[in-house]
């Protein structure tokens, strides 16, 4: 078998916005850089799926000539993010986000992104436009890139990064890397849930591999669900087109009995919770409550329709979002017809963003020397609830992580090659392929995905979480060691990839469910039916998952605060949500 070994200074894992921006940052500092993209170049990960909004403080935006709100400031934006995150934010990372955002936007404009419009605190472009600009820039400065390549493991020596092992999915061959630094930028792990809003590649192996290499992971229980996502017809499952429509044009949400269920809630919370990006936490909570109490639609959602809105103005605004009812590759004219005739469509709350992840400091260093993390796979600035843009996050993280990794690599000793370490990891990766018979990986995955959607959604309780932890532990113990591929060829063997990904999915679901069980309060996107209060006396802590042998130890550390000191006290979940909405500045806009 052909054995390829590639040497580089910095290896970037992930082909979304964070990975590309890290690659550019490292390359601009003079490092040799290789970027591994699990799927098509500039068309994988969550970035191309994004609408996409880029948030920057309004003053900076207005100074750049956009419709930004000049009364806004970096300090005001900082304060709003910390309140939106229910004080759970790492304030050092919020400072970095707010400070670096204008420079990241300016360079994107210089690299040629198309801006559709701007508002108080955001510009709107598309994820595809951002990826195209980043790809052009990376190519022009000599970043090397590999497509359809999946990270299998990191190789460390003396506790430091020495290399990595990857799989070329199309050929089925292993690729060995010798590298001084690695930037993990693998995004979320949407694939642990079904249905979901993500690309098919997001199975979270970067988070798991960093964890096993010695980095901590934290706040894994905070998982954001996008509301009003299309559930039907099947070909549109997971599209956020109706989320965008409801946010921009409005419309009515009803349960299976035809009741406008949001009427039950505080009008102030409903107003903020439907017109701002608070909708992800508020509507997902309210809709999931309807479903759990037996008032959901056949596929586990609610109904979205035009309500009492007149068709003409509705269609006019919808036409700005979706000209001729076309959105990216989707022909939504059937949706337009339905809404026009007064029919409703089924929409639901689907997994969209992971607030927790690999623990980093404000230099994006992990606990492992030479290992950095950026973007959604990192425990970022948003605390327990994200409203400001993840697009901004991936770029501000990526740039700094890439530059810091290049500086580290420049000062690091030459890597030693440890062929035995690679051999051992290749043998482990081959297990599902050489096992003669066993469980089909895609079937095990689907069963886990559906249970994760049900028990690790916006509403949880201790009994269900414990049952889910037991379920996942049993899968880990009894079924993962039994997965086998139906065919034994190595070239594009989907079941082999599925079996390898399943290890990550199970690891992350167990970490998230145990963290959710550990956090005996409700805050942000984590609501516990059996602990329906935000507990600022006992829970101003990030949860941490540490590896302890092959098992986890769930622990906690105080939230990192710089200028805003969280208040004390215990407040019921929705009252706390209202307080956090009220604490928001009057800058306006969606963020």
């Amino acid at each position, binding site marked *: 078998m052909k054995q390829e070994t590639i040497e580089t200074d910095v290896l970037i894992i992930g082909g979304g916005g964070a990975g590309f921006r890290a690659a550019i940052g490292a390359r601009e500092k003079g490092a040799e850089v290789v970027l591994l993209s699990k799927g098509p170049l500039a068309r994988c990960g969550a970035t191309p799926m994004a609408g996409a909004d880029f948030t920057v403080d309004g003053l900076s935006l207005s100074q750049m000539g956009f419709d930004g709100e000049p009364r806004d400031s970096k300090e005001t934006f900082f304060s709003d993010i910390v309140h939106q995150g229910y004080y759970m934010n790492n304030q050092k990372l919020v400072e970095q986000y707010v400070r670096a955002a204008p420079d990241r936007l300016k360079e994107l404009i210089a690299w040629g992104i198309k801006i559709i419009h701007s508002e108080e605190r955001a510009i709107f472009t598309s994820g595809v436009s951002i990826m195209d600009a980043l790809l052009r820039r990376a190519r022009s400065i000599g970043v090397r890139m590999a497509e359809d*390549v999946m990270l299998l493991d990191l190789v460390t020596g003396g506790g430091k990064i020495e290399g990595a092992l990857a799989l070329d999915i199309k050929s089925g061959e292993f690729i060995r890397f010798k590298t001084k630094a690695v930037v993990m930028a693998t995004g979320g792990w949407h694939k642990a849930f079904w249905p979901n809003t993500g690309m*098919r590649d997001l199975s979270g192996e970067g988070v798991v591999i960093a964890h096993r290499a010695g980095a901590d992971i934290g706040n894994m229980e905070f998982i954001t669900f996008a509301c009003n996502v299309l559930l039907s017809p099947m070909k549109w499952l997971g599209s956020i087109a109706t989320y965008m429509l409801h946010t921009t044009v409005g419309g009515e949400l009803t349960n299976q009995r035809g009741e406008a269920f949001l009427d039950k809630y505080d009008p102030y919370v409903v107003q903020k919770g439907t017109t701002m990006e608070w909708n992800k936490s508020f509507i997902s909570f309210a809709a999931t409550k309807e479903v759990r109490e037996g008032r959901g639609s056949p596929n586990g959602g609610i109904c979205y329709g035009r309500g009492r809105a007149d068709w003409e103005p509705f269609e006019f605004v919808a036409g700005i979002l979706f000209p001729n009812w076309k959105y990216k590759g989707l022909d939504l004219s059937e949706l337009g017809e339905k809404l026009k005739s007064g029919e409703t469509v089924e929409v639901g709350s689907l997994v969209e963003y992971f607030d927790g992840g690999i623990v980093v400091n404000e230099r994006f260093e992990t606990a492992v020397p030479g290992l950095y993390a950026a973007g959604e796979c990192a425990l970022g600035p948003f605390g327990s609830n994200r409203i400001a843009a993840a697009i901004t996050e991936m770029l501000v993280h990526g740039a700094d992580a890439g530059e810091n990794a290049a500086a580290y690599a420049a000062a690091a000793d030459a890597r030693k090659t440890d062929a035995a370490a690679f051999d051992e990891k290749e043998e482990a990766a081959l297990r599902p392929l050489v096992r003669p018979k066993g469980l089909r990986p895609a079937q*095990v995955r689907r069963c886990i995905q*559906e249970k994760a959607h049900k028990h690790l959604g916006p509403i949880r309780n201790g009994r269900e979480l414990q049952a889910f932890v037991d379920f996942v532990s049993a899968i880990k113990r009894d079924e993962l060691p039994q997965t086998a591929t139906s065919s034994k060829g190595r070239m594009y063997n989907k079941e082999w990839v599925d079996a390898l990904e399943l290890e990550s999915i199970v690891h992350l679901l167990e970490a998230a469910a145990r963290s959710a069980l550990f956090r005996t309060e409700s805050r942000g996107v984590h609501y516990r039916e059996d602990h329906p209060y935000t507990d600022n006396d006992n829970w101003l802590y990030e949860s941490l998952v540490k590896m302890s042998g092959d098992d986890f130890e769930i622990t906690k550390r105080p939230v990192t605060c710089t200028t805003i000191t969280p208040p004390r006290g215990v407040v019921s979940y929705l009252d706390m949500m209202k307080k956090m909405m009220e604490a928001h500045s009057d800058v306006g806009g969606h963020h």
Partner: protein
Amino acid sequence: MEYCLGNKHKRDGKMEKNRTTPREKNMTQKKITVKVFRFDPSVDTEPHYATYEVPFSNGMSVMNALDYIYQNLDGTLAYYDHAGCSLGICARCTGKINGKAGLFCQTPVEGDTCLEPLSLSKVVKDLVATRRGESVED
């Protein structure tokens, strides 16, 4: 204790079909035939076609049919699924549907269907085709 497949697997030696969701219950009403191009260059000397029966539901795409076949009927089938968006953005699932080029993820299934790669010369396996010669581009 709940298991995915394990208990059933141990009891009768066969694997249990996926739990049926409401979406799939609707699918049991009508069946269609999907004929798929198969070619594994590491084993086969020439391509052949395999035929599968797939439950039909309104609004399903070719990709939904492939997912059904792969997850329930034949785990050896290759189509570009390890990454990709399913929502018409990445275009990596381009192929021929009843002889016409299109995206598997956004082409509706309307009846019996034949699926082939766009070009025979670029086939990696079955419906997966290559785009570039090198794995690391310089």
